């Protein structure tokens, strides 16, 4: 299976865009929505190069990815491909006495971070459930949080850099040109000759043994099987 960056990013986006009650609201809706929701409730951007305003939060931003292909050796095109991308979640809170709101922002960010982890790492499309996922290995997740009170309210952000590893080989770059196969038609024209003298036109392009003959094929099929494989 060829894995592309856009497949992975789309899967990350879908994983983070789930809505329907989150840990932040002390509800988890995995069964209902097929994934883990976050307090961003669908406000997910990939990427986001417009400024975030207070009305936009809580918000999730998936930043453009970075990729690093590392060769597995000198005997052919084979790579361990490392893909990393940053997910940023932002929240805000109005100020309180003794800077207590900064601590509350941090608490909210911790919950947000946990939700992002569950949504991405727990996502079956990315990392597998019943079927194998797109990604062979999640090599690291680096997270950091920050709060700022430079503006009108406290603004906080959690940044998480996910690094994923998967294999890419020749088949990912030199892809065979293929035609869809919808049906096999198998013919059997046996070598143990049935008719030593007759002349027949075979159902496809091959040359029967000319008559008179002591061995086949005689050009007349002894049996056939049709296998329908259309989806």
């Amino acid at each position, binding site marked *: 299976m060829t894995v592309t960056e856009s497949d992975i990013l789309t899967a990350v986006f879908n994983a983070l865009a789930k809505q329907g009650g989150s840990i932040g609201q002390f509800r988890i809706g995995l069964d209902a929505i097929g994934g883990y929701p976050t307090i961003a409730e669908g406000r997910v951007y990939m990427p986001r*190069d417009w*400024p*975030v305003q207070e009305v936009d939060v809580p918000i999730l931003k998936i930043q453009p990815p970075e990729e690093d292909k590392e060769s597995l050796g000198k005997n052919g095109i084979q790579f361990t491909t490392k893909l990393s991308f940053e997910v940023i979640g932002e929240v805000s809170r*109005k100020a309180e*006495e*003794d800077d207590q*709101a900064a601590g509350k922002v941090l608490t909210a960010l911790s919950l947000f971070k946990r939700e992002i982890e569950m949504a991405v790492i727990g996502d079956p499309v990315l990392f597998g459930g019943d079927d194998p996922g797109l990604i062979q290995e999640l090599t690291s997740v680096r997270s950091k949080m920050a709060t*700022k009170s430079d503006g*009108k309210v406290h603004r906080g952000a959690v940044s998480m850099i996910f690094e994923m590893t998967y294999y890419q080989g020749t088949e990912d770059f030199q892809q065979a040109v293929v035609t869809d196969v919808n049906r096999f038609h198998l013919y059997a024209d046996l070598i143990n000759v049935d008719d030593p003298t007759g002349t027949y036109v075979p159902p496809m392009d091959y040359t029967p043994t000319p008559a008179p003959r002591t061995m086949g094929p005689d050009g007349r099929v002894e049996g056939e099987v049709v296998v329908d494989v259309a989806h």
Partner: protein
Amino acid sequence: MAIDWEAEVGAPNVAVFGGTARYYPADGSPAFDLIGVADEGFREVVIVDSLSYTSDASPVIGVNSAQFALNNWTPQQNDKVKITDPLSKMFGQSFIVKEPRPDSHGIILLILNEYETPLP
């Protein structure tokens, strides 16, 4: 010749450009009214290095120190202020003092954050 900057420059400026505000000392002393120059212009806030910044405002109010001396109060963190000048775009908003910044010439610039509970 020595100049009393607050009397000559600060106080007249505040009187001309300022508007009314109600001030709530942090220790619970009675609130008092004052005149201050309130602003909340746009400010870009970068929380973490990111493709996009965060657009916010930076609310401040400048007050000459004599108005605080009159009420036996030195501005400090956790004081609260409500803008009561109906002509101000910040009218009715409640703030908490994040940082008082005296200029040593009689004007104190109070850096504000929006307060979570509306003040009376």
